[in-house]
């Protein structure tokens, strides 16, 4: 009992720590993805904004969906949501709890991507370089350029090699300015996320602790029930298969005996286990026939019940009485040939 309890606790705690582990791995993966990604600003007036904001916002969305996909419990949630009511009522609080806990875990990797992107600064520099306030940061004395020209020049700020507006505004000044704004946004974003997480975690015990305990218990229950049902079905399938195959071999053996018209010669004394396991098939030709029959004509998925120990012929489901083979030797005396 103790051993079961310890193993089960390990499994239970392991499930939670397993999901936290996946969560952490995805966060690390997102930082790794960002550093491995070769950011390449197009340095063209209208493309910059699209590219910069795209890199900032599309991968987090992908990571969020991936967080849901990698979570095993999503199918459990969907099943519980869509099942017919039947004889067991549905509790929306449990569904909400399951969805919230999955969504919270899935939000971590996108938040990490957005923070790392903002703190690094390349995306915002690329996206908003055309909006730099030239009047305050740039040189007062510069030849008058048209708006389009100014935009084209400013759009090249992230690409230092081709930047040609040093008289308009120094490249380093503009980059520093944009990066400062980006990092400020990044820190504010991280602060906001952390404050939200803190509030969610600390306000919950103040308001709905009892309901929370209930939802948590029943969501664990649903998970465990599903797993146990799968295990029971697997056990059942195994026994089913075993009996089915056993009956197949018995059937084969009966057919052979009927075909060759000789009684099975089984030495009573030293039959033992080996003879039992042979299931009445003792030469190559017979084995080949058994294998061919298994391939060509699998037995139906219907296990006929074993013959009764009483002597009456049974009005069964039309199955021919099976000849008692070696495994049933000890009860052979009770069967009657009908």
């Amino acid at each position, binding site marked *: 009992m*103790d051993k079961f*309890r310890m193993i*089960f*606790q390990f499994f*239970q705690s392991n499930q939670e720590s397993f999901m936290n582990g996946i969560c952490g791995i995805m966060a690390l993966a997102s930082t790794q993805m960002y550093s491995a990604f070769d950011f390449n600003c197009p340095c063209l007036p209208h493309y910059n904004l699209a590219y910069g904001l795209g890199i900032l916002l599309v991968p987090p969305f992908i990571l969020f969906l991936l967080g849901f996909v990698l979570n095993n419990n999503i199918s459990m949630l969907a099943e519980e949501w869509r*099942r*017919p009511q*039947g*004889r*067991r009522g549905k509790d929306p609080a449990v569904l909400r709890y399951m969805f919230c806990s999955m969504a919270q875990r899935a939000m971590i990797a996108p938040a990490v991507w957005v923070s790392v992107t903002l*703190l*690094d*600064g390349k995306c915002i520099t690329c996206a908003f370089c055309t909006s730099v306030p030239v009047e305050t*940061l740039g040189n007062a004395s510069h030849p008058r350029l048209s708006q389009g020209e100014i935009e084209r020049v400013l759009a090249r700020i992230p690409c230092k090699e081709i930047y040609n507006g040093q008289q308009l505004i120094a490249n*380093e*000044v503009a980059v*520093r*300015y944009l*990066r*400062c704004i980006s*990092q*400020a946004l990044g*820190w*504010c974003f*991280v*602060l906001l996320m*952390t*404050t939200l*997480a*803190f509030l969610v*975690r*600390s306000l919950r*015990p*103040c308001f709905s*602790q009892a309901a929370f305990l209930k939802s948590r*218990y029943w969501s*664990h*229950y649903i998970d*465990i*029930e599903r797993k*146990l*049902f799968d295990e*029971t*079905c697997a*056990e*059942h399938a*195994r*026994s*089913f298969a*075993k*009996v089915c195959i056993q009956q197949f071999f018995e059937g084969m053996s009966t057919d052979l005996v009927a075909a060759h018209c000789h009684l099975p010669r089984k030495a009573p004394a030293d039959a033992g286990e080996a003879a039992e396991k042979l299931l009445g098939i003792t030469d190559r030709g017979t084995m080949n026939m058994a294998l061919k029959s298994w391939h060509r004509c699998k037995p139906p*998925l*219907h*296990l006929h*019940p*074993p013959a*009764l*120990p*009483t002597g009456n012929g049974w009005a*069964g489901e039309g199955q021919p009485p099976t000849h008692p083979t070696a495994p049933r030797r000890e009860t052979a005396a009770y069967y009657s040939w009908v």
Partner: protein
Amino acid sequence: MDRFRMIFQYFQSNSESVMNGICGLLALASVKMYTSFDFSCPCLPQYNMAYGLGVMFVPPVILFLCGLILNRQSLVMLEEWRRPQGRRKKDLAVIRYMCSSIVQRAMVAPVVWIVVTLLDGKCLICAFSGSMDPEKFVGFANVSTVQVQQLLAKVPCKDDELVRNNTSRKAVSRYLRCWSQALGWSILLILIIAAFLARWLRPCFNQATLLQARHWSNYIDIEQKIFEETCCEHSRLFAHKCILHFFESMRQEIKLHSCSLPGEGEGPEGEEDLLRGITDQDQVNKLLKMWYYEKPPLDVS
């Protein structure tokens, strides 16, 4: 019995050491975050102070909140604080003890960040270079006010063309860094002395109350853990019974409908038990369909 005791001791010591471990990890993470953060002072008159002080004070707040979130005991303390009294009185000393231990652990990472920032010096140089008195430095003494502000603001940026070879820039930078490091070391010294005194003088005051508070706070923690484990075990047994009932009711239904032989229970004992009377493809399909369309009620009486 011994095994139980060992497990309890493991839990008890483990909770403390887990919290200390998280505390240490956060401190290391804060150092790593600082070194990997690319500090880039804007070198503009109004932005420098905001950026410098922001980088010095916002991440400590974030680290403090993280320290509170990651600490399991904070939830336990909040639950104990907000629970209805019921039949168990609440002891405020215990709650105070838990609160102070949580806050102490959560303060380590922010303090590490601030100290590392000060010892490195970049933040203070960025924040306060614009507030320097230009008269003290030869290169900035005879420049107009507006321009001196611009120049001072550019001091943190070594490569800026305006101040690249300016010796006064280096003087301002060194001056500010000296102040920053002095401040950093002083803060570290004061905190360590305070921690030392607190730990050393604590046994002189209220030792008995402290022992009680610590015992009961450990107790509350362990009680909650055991409650969760018991609930898990219970739900497993509940599920097991529920599924067995379901299979049993299916078997009875099949018996009713197909009027099969009465002696079905005989035969090789093990296999029959596991088959639970379901021996047919249609029966299995029916069972699986029933499981989906009509889950059994949550009642195993």
